[in-house]
């Protein structure tokens, strides 16, 4: 196994594109090293992206936040402004693993590990995030919900990697939240996760809503119908019930060691409703 730590995007792409064997990018490493340890992957090349400046910084511009894909969860949490704008997203990122994992784990890694249960993805979907991808053909943008295609499979081509996330600024009347269900209070992979982003008008009527779900299908979902169900309401019971029905209808989960199909479908609705209440509160304050 070779280890490289390039300092530019171009150099990183060149290394990844040229490798004939298995190449892996290393950001926080909290998934990659486990996969290597358990013999799930035996890469010929590991490219450490943490020396590339753009990947390690968070900037606030007029069009929103640009979050480097290799910024750790612990660093994200310390960004007061980002937390004020998108508390749900930061909370989601901070649910990934323990304090120790937070010291290393990144948004880029959580996305590109391509687990249906990744905590940050539903929250990123809710926040209407896009990703900036760099590769042999240069840069391209993709909506966050279009990156993961299936478990362990992304839309990235050979030589490509995610550089940063773009998240719009929070306008007045917007709020987000992410909740997940796990059997313990910490250290588990989400059995179900739900991220909600809402926009309300001054009277409190929801004018737009985005709902992302995790661990209920082969990839994280953007459930448009669920968001639409809330639009025009003040999060009254009828609208929430409609949203919950849409959430449950979108779930195509599996039975596994973490939960049953019935449980996941049921609890997806419960968690989405609870997250919606938090997001609505945040939108109104």
């Amino acid at each position, binding site marked *: 196994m070779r280890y490289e730590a390039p300092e530019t995007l171009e150099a990183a792409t060149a290394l990844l594109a040229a490798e004939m064997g298995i190449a892996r990018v290393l950001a926080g490493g909290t998934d990659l090293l486990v996969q290597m340890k358990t013999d799930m992957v035996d890469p010929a090349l590991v490219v450490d992206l943490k020396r590339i400046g753009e990947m390690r910084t968070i900037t606030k511009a007029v069009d929103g936040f640009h979050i480097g894909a290799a910024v750790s969860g612990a660093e994200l949490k310390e960004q007061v402004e980002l937390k004020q704008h998108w508390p749900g997203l930061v909370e989601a990122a901070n649910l990934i693993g323990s304090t120790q994992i937070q010291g290393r784990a990144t948004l880029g890694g959580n996305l590109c590990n391509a687990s249906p249960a990744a905590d940050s993805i539903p929250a990123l979907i809710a926040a209407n995030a896009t990703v900036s991808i760099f590769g042999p053909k240069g840069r391209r943008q993709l909506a966050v919900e279009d990156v993961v295609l299936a478990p362990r499979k992304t839309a990235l081509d050979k030589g490509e990697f995610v550089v940063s996330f773009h998240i719009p600024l929070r306008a007045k009347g917007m709020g987000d939240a992410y909740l997940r269900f796990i059997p*313990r209070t910490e*250290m588990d992979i989400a059995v179900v996760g739900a991220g909600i982003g809402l926009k309300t008008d001054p009277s409190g009527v929801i004018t737009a809503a985005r709902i992302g779900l995790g661990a209920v299908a082969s990839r994280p979902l953007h459930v448009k119908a669920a968001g639409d169900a809330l639009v025009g309401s003040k999060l009254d019971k009828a609208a929430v019930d409609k949203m919950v029905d849409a959430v449950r209808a979108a779930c195509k989960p599996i039975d596994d*060691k973490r939960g*049953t199909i019935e449980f996941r479908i049921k*609890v997806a609705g419960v968690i989405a409703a609870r997250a919606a209440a938090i997001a609505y509160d945040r939108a109104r304050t």
Partner: protein
Amino acid sequence: MQETVKKLTPEPEYKIIGTRPQRPDGVDKVTGRARFGADHNLPGQLTGLVLRSPHPHANIRSIDVSAAMALPGVKAIVTRDDFKDQGSEFVPAGEMLINYRDVVRNVMARERALYEGHAVAAVAALSPSIAKAALKLIKVDYEILPHVLDVDEAMAPGAPILHPGMITAGMDPAPKRESNVAKRVEFALGDVAKGFAAADVIVERHFETKSVHQGYIEPHACLATVAEDGQADIWVSTQGHWIVRAHCARLLGMDISKIRVTATEIGGGFGGKTVVYLEPLALALSRKAGKPVKMTMSRDEVFRATGPTSGAKMRIKIGATKDGRIVACDGELKYLAGAFQGSPVAPGCMCAFAPYDVDHVKIVGYDVVSNRPKVAAYRAPGGPISGYAVESVIDELASKLKLDPIAFRLKNAARQGTKAAYGPKFGPVGLVESLQAAQSHDHWKAPLKVNQGRGIAAGFWFNIGGETTVSIALNEDGTLVLMAGTPDIGGLRASLCMMAAEELGIGMDAIRVTIADTQSLGYNFLTGGSRSTFSSGMGVVEASRSIVKQVCERAAKLWELPTDAIEYVDGSVRPAGANAGKHPPMTLKQVAAMAGKTGGPIVGSSSINAHGAAPSFGVHLCDVEVDPETGRTTIIRYTVIQDAGRAIHPAYVEGQYQGGAVQGIGWALNEEYVYGTDGKLQNAGFLDYRIPVASDLPMIDTVIVEVPNPAHPYGVRGIGETPIVPPMGAIANAITHATGLRFQSLPMSPPKVLAAIDAARAVGDVNFKLKVA
């Protein structure tokens, strides 16, 4: 909430017993200096790794190691061919009786691989990466056989048979057909039919529990070196190094004197480190390679190949009269033993009804093999499983009888003179006192909120003594060296040091405690069965008293007085009685300085088979809150009340209570071995084998009840096992009182609880009482 100690008998005037000094090994353990199993290294050591069966059940047609052996850097490979077969013979070594025919097959598969993870070969190589590469080059020709995991499947007619020719023992007449049932046991008292005839209320329920792992944080590890002349050394994380020595000598055909075993610091065991896995392999590899071999298990290997405890299916039936007298108990327990016989079903049967004074009892147990790792002891082996079932039924009976659950238990509680459900009469025991302490505890009276419930359960463990050697040497400056042979797994050095200091009337600082290797001390049975403070403590007292006697004799000689004219008080000797004041007192230090001239070194030792272990009863109170929409249970409050006999070091007694309770909380709520239909374990890691984490829990309050054990010089009972017996019952009962529903299957994980909630809602169950906010 501060911990309390309830003194129920007049307290002798102790200076040190009952205080909370720092442990002698404490600084080493907070600085990283303490060396655990994997922290020992030797120059030139090789890395040993194990090839494990990917199949739950397969004939091993052949093993070809030639390609692996040819890999540069590979120094030795061992397979079944390197271990002589052992005949079927039950030997009391380690936990319960073991059969070396099975032990040799468990450490290295012979005819068959009997579970996924079963060792098939082991490699020693220059580096971990070479060893890993070598494992991939070993060709094993498996003939895959159908597997069986569940107790009912394993007992069903026509089930795949793990051990051809195995006939169930304990049946009269013996069955003609082979089966997966290794043994049937039965314990009976009185006439249950007659008992049930007198009952006004009878509750009979079926229960299921899953296999759970001890979950010690330190994986198994050892370092072995065998010299060309056959003299061997092994450093190993174990609960019993003399047991390791015995097993290794037997499996490797070596003389016991050739093997020196040093118990490293041990990172948790809970029963799981009372047997051998890596040790014989490491010795065999080292013998073959002529170099030291270090072996450590990965966490994955720990889960797949080392002892969980049994999963079980049970039927429990208890009858009581209107006024709350239990008149009959009947039960049937089927425990999974894993690939080889030896589940703790017998103690499970004996413990089940032990807290209660009942005239008519019958309980039958089955020891059932299946294609899972062989179970190892786990804290009060067998007791928590049957205890959960019995305490659930007791709670339901109390509800049916409209009796307070503590009052109901008090009315039937075992006490001194009660004929235990397993036969003999109890001496002084503290169940009544513990129940009374629960009744008067503010926890019992605290108000509950919506969706919360409170549960209570009692629990019991026998405790044991056993073979023990202790030696105390008086150094020339008056300090002492104390050697014990039971590994210190949770503060033993502290309690032994305290007992010695109390006896000798000196400060603990003057005594250094060492856990001696097998070459430096006589035989010791292992740390387990809650015996180490009891047994090694007895040894310490005897050895200390021998020192006192010798010191008095030396002073008597010096003063030319009869020995009985000397008294030893607070670390000094002085003339007593008529001779009082004739000579100034001599300190231990002064006597020590003269030892060489007055007869030689002063050493006190004790070699005993410690008898007189006394049972410990505990009572747990637990409050839970159940989320009506997700089925998630949160432990809101928890109190452990238990009879310690006497707490030598109360902080470590509390620690045992708290730790046992939390292991039980894990068992009750989330822990389980999850298998796929392919017979492979799906959650062999701490990510999905969910032991409790800090944020899952409240503080665990404790009450130490002290009903001294008259057979121990300080009244000690064992206390480590009992705390894991009541939690599952207490939590199940609490969830019942929160939800109005009964749960008869562990773990009470969210999907299971939510399914029950939904079912209750669907049928409009009148008992159901959770409310959505």
